[in-house]
């Protein structure tokens, strides 16, 4: 066994085994209501092995539930980028805009999704648009802030090239400002996607819409605790994959 395989496979595997053991011990000693790993797997098997079955609104394979959540996150994330990117560029480009709106950005940023959701329900009267509204509002801030920072940290050398060439505002934006800040913008997108995924669970729990979060809450109310763990693991796995995916995109932009 080479040193590299030990590092890449054996050590992470050891970590997983350690956590599973701790979980088993806890479920048999302190927290007896917590299903053990073996029981969780027994009761969740069908959801994982037939991920796309549908027996009812809330009783569906985990693949189907994850798909609903992903579609919802996709919409909210898209809206966050659509709103956040131009706001970020304006904050970075215009001193006046920055002075007018930066305090508001700083004030809105720490507000929890739990606070936005009721407001969304009041405005839209329906849970679906309210959930998307909440995701967008919570997820847009890293995009806003990273874009603004990216614009402000463009090397003066590049801007001087544009000044010497007397580029029009439009050309300055498309040829210099946007490409130069793109790596920052995509870091913002990656962080925003992570937040959007974080918010989806809360949004679904509160609105009771079908999805991983909604399923989790319903199974809690039905006392099927093993399915809570199934949902938690699913949320973790998908979140990890999304981050990896955006990481690949981000690296591509950085090389370019």
């Amino acid at each position, binding site marked *: 066994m080479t040193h590299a395989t030990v590092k890449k496979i054996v050590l992470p595997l050891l970590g997983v085994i350690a956590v599973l053991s701790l979980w088993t011990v806890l479920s048999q000693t302190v927290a007896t209501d917590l299903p053990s790993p073996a029981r969780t797997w027994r009761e969740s098997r069908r959801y994982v092995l037939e991920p796309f079955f549908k027996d009812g609104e809330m009783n569906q394979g985990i693949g189907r539930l994850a798909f609903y959540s992903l579609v919802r996150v996709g919409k909210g994330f898209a809206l966050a980028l659509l709103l956040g990117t131009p706001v970020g560029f304006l904050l970075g480009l215009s001193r006046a805009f920055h002075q007018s709106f930066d305090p508001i950005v700083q004030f809105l940023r720490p507000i929890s999704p739990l606070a936005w959701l009721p407001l969304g329900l009041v405005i839209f009267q329906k849970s679906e648009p309210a959930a998307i509204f909440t995701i967008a509002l919570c997820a847009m801030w890293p995009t806003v802030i990273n874009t603004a920072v990216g614009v402000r940290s463009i090397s003066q050398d590049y801007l001087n*090239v544009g000044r010497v*060439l*007397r580029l029009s505002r439009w050309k300055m934006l498309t*040829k210099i400002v946007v490409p130069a800040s793109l790596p920052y913008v995509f870091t913002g997108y990656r962080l925003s996607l992570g937040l959007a995924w974080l918010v989806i669970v809360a949004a679904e729990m509160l609105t009771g819409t079908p999805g991983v979060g909604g399923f989790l809450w319903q199974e809690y109310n039905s006392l099927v605790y093993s399915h809570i763990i199934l949902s938690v693991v699913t949320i973790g796995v998908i979140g990890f994959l999304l981050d990896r995916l955006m990481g690949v995109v981000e690296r591509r932009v950085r090389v370019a």
Partner: protein
Amino acid sequence: MAYLEVLGLRKAYATARGRTEVLGGVDLAVDEGEFVAVVGYSGSGKTTLVSLVAGLIAPDAGEIVLDGAPVTGPGPERGIVFQQYSLLPWLSVHDNVALAVDAVNPGRPARERRRLTEELIALVNLTPAAGKRPAQLSGGMRQRVAVARGLAMQPKVLLMDEPFSALDALTRASCQDHLLRIWGERRTTVILITNDVDEAILLADRIYPMTPGPGAVLGPAIEVGLPRPRARRHLSLEPAYQKARQAIVDFLRANRRVA
């Protein structure tokens, strides 16, 4: 009045310990089609002088007049080859040059602008690399792209701020030879800023030595009496070469900063 006239140029910067005067009244005159070099120690204010002539920063006092018009801001008629090249890393060699060609020829048809761009890339011998990004090029190749972009601005005067200082000695020599050939073909008015006395003599018609700052000024210009076209070989054995070199070194020594 000369083609480019710089009169009593002063510039000071605010620092933690008060104001530091970088340039203390610089005078400079360049004729049309002339190749002038400014030679001085590192940190004496040469880049400040270039930035002022380029119009990227404003002087505290003094004026710059090019072809009868005072300089008030940056513009392509004072094309610049930056010290760190400042090529846009997200654009190919072709697109970096095309950006300048398109900016100064907005009225011309696209095909003609494309031809101009390709011509300039060929002039610096980079046609095979036209599709590459700056990061894929060697230092010497990047430097040549920067020269092509500077020329693409069709400048009345081309400002070169220590254009070869980031290169190793061999690449540096080959880039100087390139520049010598290109200047022979184009006869663009050039101000070359350098800390290399031999580079200045090889390339320039006239050389202004610069006193070390603070409050740097230019000494009297030294004529380089070498005939053109010049070739690097045996040049340093010419009496005119040695005379110019001695004059510059004497001036720089006499005005050395007292440490």
